[in-house]
């Protein structure tokens, strides 16, 4: 892989973004940050990331689902449809409990789902898989 993969972190907690940014930079990733879904969509268009780490709950609403839907279905974002989305949440205990992974909501199904706080080894492994397949 010749290009350093870019990860966009969309999360409204600045401390969570700071720790994940440091982790990713130490492992050679480039990091973009957005503190709201709206800013996230703008960042996607400005500086297309290779993968998006997206919090479901921002400002007490399930904004993450709306962003996923926009990225997958809105015409303005057609060029970014293939960017893998890793959804994260501290509310649901496991991916199996998650609304996002239930069969009825195929439209907003992320490529992967992780709970917060992130299990670092699992997270890095997932990122390697996701970014390498995206670059093949």
């Amino acid at each position: 892989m010749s290009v350093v993969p870019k990860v966009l972190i969309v999360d409204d907690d600045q401390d969570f973004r700071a720790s994940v940014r440091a982790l990713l930079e130490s492992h050679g990733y480039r990091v973009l940050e957005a503190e709201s879904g709206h800013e996230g969509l703008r960042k996607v268009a400005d500086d297309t990331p290779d993968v998006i780490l997206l919090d479901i709950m921002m400002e007490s609403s399930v904004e993450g689902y709306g962003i996923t839907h926009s990225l997958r279905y809105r015409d303005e974002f057609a060029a970014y449809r293939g960017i893998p989305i890793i959804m994260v949440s501290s509310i649901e205990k496991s991916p199996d409990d998650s609304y996002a992974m239930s069969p009825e909501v195929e439209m907003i199904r992320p490529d992967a789902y992780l709970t917060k706080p992130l299990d670092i080894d699992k997270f890095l492994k997932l990122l390697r898989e996701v970014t390498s397949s995206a670059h093949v």
Partner: protein
Amino acid sequence: MSSPAERETIVVIDDDYAMRLSCRKILEKSGFNVETFEDGVQGLEGVARLKPGLVVVDLKMPGMSGLEVIGRVHAIDPDIILVVITGYATIDTAVEAMKTGAYDFLPKPFAPDELRLIVNRGFERRRLVLEGRQYEVERALLKRRFITFVSHQLQTPLVAVHQYLDVLKHLGDHPDVAEKREEWIHRCLQRIEAMQVMVKEWLELSAVESEGFARSRDRVDLKVVIADIFAAYQPHAEAAQVSLESDLPDGCSVAGDRHCVAVLFDNLIANAVKYNRPGGKVTVGAEIQSGEVRISVADTGIGIPEKYIPFLFDEFFRVRDEATRNTSGSGLGLAICRKVTAEMGGQITVESKVEEGSVFRVSLPAWRQKESNAA
């Protein structure tokens, strides 16, 4: 005249044709939508289809008895009101019907007004039950929302702290993290302190909500209370370059709970410092008027946009905009202020101008000498 769609429906089940006809006439005249059936089986089918608010049923019918009909109607919808008509008005049959869940009974023969009266009372009863149920549902929803909100409010900082520590552990002596370690530890401590404040305020709020709290009527000298709070906030205020001033008349005492009064003004003064600007001031004033002490806590800060004022005293409400993005808070402080003020028989209001400041006004019952004599 109400439209047919809004009309309440009544189902009448009676094997006697004349009785069905007279019930229909009487009740239709009162504006009800009436359907009649000649036996229990057809009647139940009608109840399931028409979803009436009230059913009038004859106790003594061939085939399915009135008592059995009562049980089956309630199996369809327990909120349907049942009025029983009984040919032999003995206490026994009536009592049995009531035990089975009937609302009331009407002995034959009856006057039209007797039927109307009992039916109207039945609908009144139904309305009260349904409204009560609605209230219960709303309460349960509110409670669930509260729990979800609290868990999210605590979950978020816990995750942030946990993630910092995990990453610190993972990176070990990595040069990238050396410079960050101190800042991160500082941030972790800040987040933990914020959680502690939130838990403390949450407990205070539930203490105020629980009975028996804030009921004591002590003589609380505001000069002493405010001086104590100013002393506690002096370092904060100096760091923020905000001056603290008070102008309280002598004998400025309120009748209230000492702890509640302290919590109330602690919150208001903390906010007045927090949402102020360098070079600004916080002014606490008071006047005694017709048995009340009216206290004002004024700041020269960022002010509150008018659209947020109606929600300002709600639990967990926080103004989120550019002006407040670097402040933290649980969103409970003013909710607590409103609760304790109300508990002490007072009122709290706010006036504000964006970029000029806010004035919180509290009125509390003044302390009277005779209260101390009575005590």
